[in-house]
């Protein structure tokens, strides 16, 4: 949406308020199963989990957008059918990924081929080259013919909700842009090396768990925008590359015409 003229705001806000009275936010969709949550992949041998980061992200997503969420992170074994219950999954990597069983890789590859989305977050912030190598090895097994590549600045993931013009930072800002595997014109797998979950993670008191460097709180704010865009991209794919959107954004001078 949606910025109709100011003169319409009063009428529309009244309508929206009426709707809000009819339905409490948590009652949306047909049961919890239909609501968006995030699956945290748990690999054999143990995988880092940061559920508070995803809870925070989904809460902000629900507050900011029209998406109906269940703000939770659910541990998911990628070797089971439960994987398909969570079309948005994350894999946090703080140590080299162990070699996965072929059946697990096969199931994960099918999940991504049939519409699932995976965000791999290097929680070392690109500081551990073995972590990076193991991620690339896993991606190579998932997509033998499609290499990871930097997602360009005009990629739909950078426009899915916010306009991300200056990069995709996390707790750190090691790499300006994220990388992804493109199949057709979609990227079902995105790889971030800036420890996004580290920027979003919250303590039990609700405060940020780790400082962001080098940009501090402004960088954290940007990281939240990256997180929201990732979820919106998983939900809307290349919707924001549709001509109607691009044309209007250029007219509004929020994008430069090419």
């Amino acid at each position, binding site marked *: 949406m949606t910025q109709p003229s100011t003169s319409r705001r009063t009428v529309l806000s009244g309508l929206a308020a009426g709707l809000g009275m009819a339905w409490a936010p948590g009652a949306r969709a047909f049961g919890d199963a239909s609501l968006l949550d995030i699956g945290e992949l748990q690999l054999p041998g143990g995988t880092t989990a940061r559920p508070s980061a995803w809870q925070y992200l989904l809460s902000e997503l629900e507050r900011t957008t029209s998406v109906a969420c269940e703000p939770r992170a659910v541990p998911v074994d990628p070797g089971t059918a439960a994987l398909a219950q969570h079309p948005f999954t994350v894999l946090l990597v703080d140590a080299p990924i162990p070699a996965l069983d072929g059946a697990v890789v096969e199931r994960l590859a099918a999940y991504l081929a049939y519409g699932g989305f995976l965000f791999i977050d290097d929680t070392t912030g690109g500081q551990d080259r073995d972590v990076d190598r193991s991620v690339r090895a896993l991606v190579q097994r998932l997509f033998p013919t499609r290499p990871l590549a930097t997602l360009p600045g005009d990629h739909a993931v950078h426009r899915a909700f916010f306009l991300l013009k200056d990069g995709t930072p996390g707790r750190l800002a090691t790499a300006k842009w994220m990388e992804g595997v493109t199949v057709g014109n979609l990227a079902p797998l995105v790889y971030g090396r800036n420890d996004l979950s580290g920027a979003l993670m919250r303590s039990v008191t609700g405060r940020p768990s780790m400082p962001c460097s080098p940009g501090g709180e402004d960088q954290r704010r940007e990281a939240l925008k990256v997180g929201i865009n990732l979820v919106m991209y998983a939900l809307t794919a290349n919707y924001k590359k549709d001509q*109607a959107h691009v044309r209007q954004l250029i007219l509004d001078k929020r994008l430069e015409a090419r």
Partner: protein
Amino acid sequence: MAWWLGGELAAGGELLRTAPDGVVWSAVLGALVAWGLAVPGERRPLMRAVELVAWGLALAGLVFALARPVWVEEAGRQVPGRVAVLVDASASMAIEEEGRPRHTQAAAWIEQLRAEPGVEFLQFGERLDPGAPTTFDRGGTDLASVLSSLDDRYAGERLAGVVVITDGIDRGRLRAAWQAGDDPEPPRLPGPLTVVGVGSKGAVRDLAVVGVEAGGYAYLRTPVSLEARLSGSGFEGQTVRAELLRDGAVVRSQDVTLDDAGQATVTFKVVPQEAGRSAWAVRVPTYDGDAVPGNDELPLVLRVVRDQIRVLQVAGSPSWDVKFLRRFLKGDPSVELVSFFILRTWDDARASRWGDDELSLIAFPYRDLFTSEIGNFDLVVFQNFDYREFFGQGEAAELLQNVRDQVVEGGHGFVMVGGDRSFDLGGYGTTPLAELLPVQVASAERPPVVEPFQPTLTAAGARHVVTRMTADPVENEAWWARLHPVDGTHRGIATRPGATVLLEHPSAKGDDGKPLPVVAVREAGKGRAMALAADSSWRWSLSEAAEGRGNQAYLRFWKQAIRWLIQDPTAERVTIDPERDNVPLGQPARLVVRARDAGFQLLGDARVELTIRRGTDEQVLSGVTGPEGEAVFEVPSTHRGAHRVHASVLRGSDRVGEADTVYAVTSRDPELEEVAPDHAYLRWLAGRSGGTFLSASERGAIARDPSADRTAWDRKEVALWRAPILMLWIAGFAGVAWIVRRRGGLR
């Protein structure tokens, strides 16, 4: 003496045997045996000698006769070479010029040429036949083909001359190439060519539509130009009115001025609103003295196809259901998708801590979409979309009415997909869309069913193309039974009378006491509508794939649903195809009806009722499909004009389906699409062949080749084997031998 010999025998003749060798040798052998049988027996030596000599002479005569000897005499004489006179017998030669048919000019030349030595008359249209024509009604002219056949006809003989009498309206490849600016080589002729051009261009007054082009087919709801070519002899520089007709009624007219050559092009732009075939025609007025009124109108059957299915997907919120449907639609190359997802509500906007320049959001152009643009979409999908958040008071009814009108009156498709902003929860119970939907929508919101359930396939669903995943009913039911459950459904809806419920809740009932409909369809006016009262059909894709069953269930369900919704003819179980778009008056129109079962297998033994309408006339025919699923009808063409055909197919008491088509019956003679004689072409033909051109009004000499004179051989035959003297010879000597033998005491 001549009588005794069977005819006069002159010197210089030649004796020929005409009996086969076998007959001759058999006769010789038989004669020797007979003679040998006469040798035994006691008699005086003289008597014996006389008898055997007489037998020998009689038998020799018999053998001579059996050899069928003929006396042959041949004598040669010089005769002039033959002249082939080819007269055009096509219908254009019957066109009247100044009150007289054009062929009367040819008749004068025919009379003149009868006096020429060695003349043979032939007539032609698209082929060559012997004799001068007595009627002029052939349906085509192909000079190249006709001239090429001369060599075969005369077996390579050199002719003294070839004369072609024609008006030059050659519809074959030779003139077409010449008209295109080429310089084609005419066929090689066995003699020098004289072309006699009949007709006078200025004497013909005729206005004709000579061609209408639309590029073969048109795209639905996309402007297409119907370009008509007019030709007017006697109308050079004049302005005439051309009319475009649809099903016999004038829909457009346009004035057009013919150039100095009497040619003009007029273009009508139309926007087809229905896929399939439609009958059009371009017509010019019939003026007094019009040489060929039959060419004043030219019919055209326009085939309208969908270039792409244009789909508008409006979603009230991003969700997995929205994402998977968009993914499916985007992945189908036959779909042109325009999506609008509501990414932020007004509540979100008010509470936002983000600046607008940080956002990649655009205004939802709902007003344009649902007024000026709505007609461009074959299918509109409302996916969990609550109009109340956007449509202002007073305009909601107007905008939703536009959607309703596009379906009911425009023949488009509409789907409402469930969710917390759909059906009763979107407040649609009191909107114009309530009239459209295949479910009755409660005017007040009802708490939805939030427990997952396995939808049940209804009896109608087992047959319907939307939910028929496989041809085998048992397998189809098993397919639906094993699909991943859906997460919930609406409670504020109920089955609508006249709609077809395909999937229903296994236990939950609506206010009407019937199971809650989950998937229902309905033909609404000219269009079609579907309700999917769930927001988790996406699980038929990802969850099924996770179980190792792929996503075929999801793809087939949506693909079949869309094809049914947009009334894609290929998705119909019954099709009807005319063999020809334009059927000549008097010839039968051949129509092929094909029927398929729900699994799209060809269906035999189905009863077909065919209704053919032309204006208010109606004709009903019936038939039965054969094992190959086809029923063929041959319908006499007794009247001109567009004929609309409706086929209805039943198998037993079950309705298989219906189909419509159109064809045109025309009395137009292709030979008469042009009426002005083309003497320029004939001059070129004569010159290119090294011959002579003469106009019919001239009385010049035709070109002749003296070297083509030939020797004619007269042959005289006398059949000696029938000569009386030979019969007398045989009988005489045989009689003498017999008498001598009897005198000798033998029998």
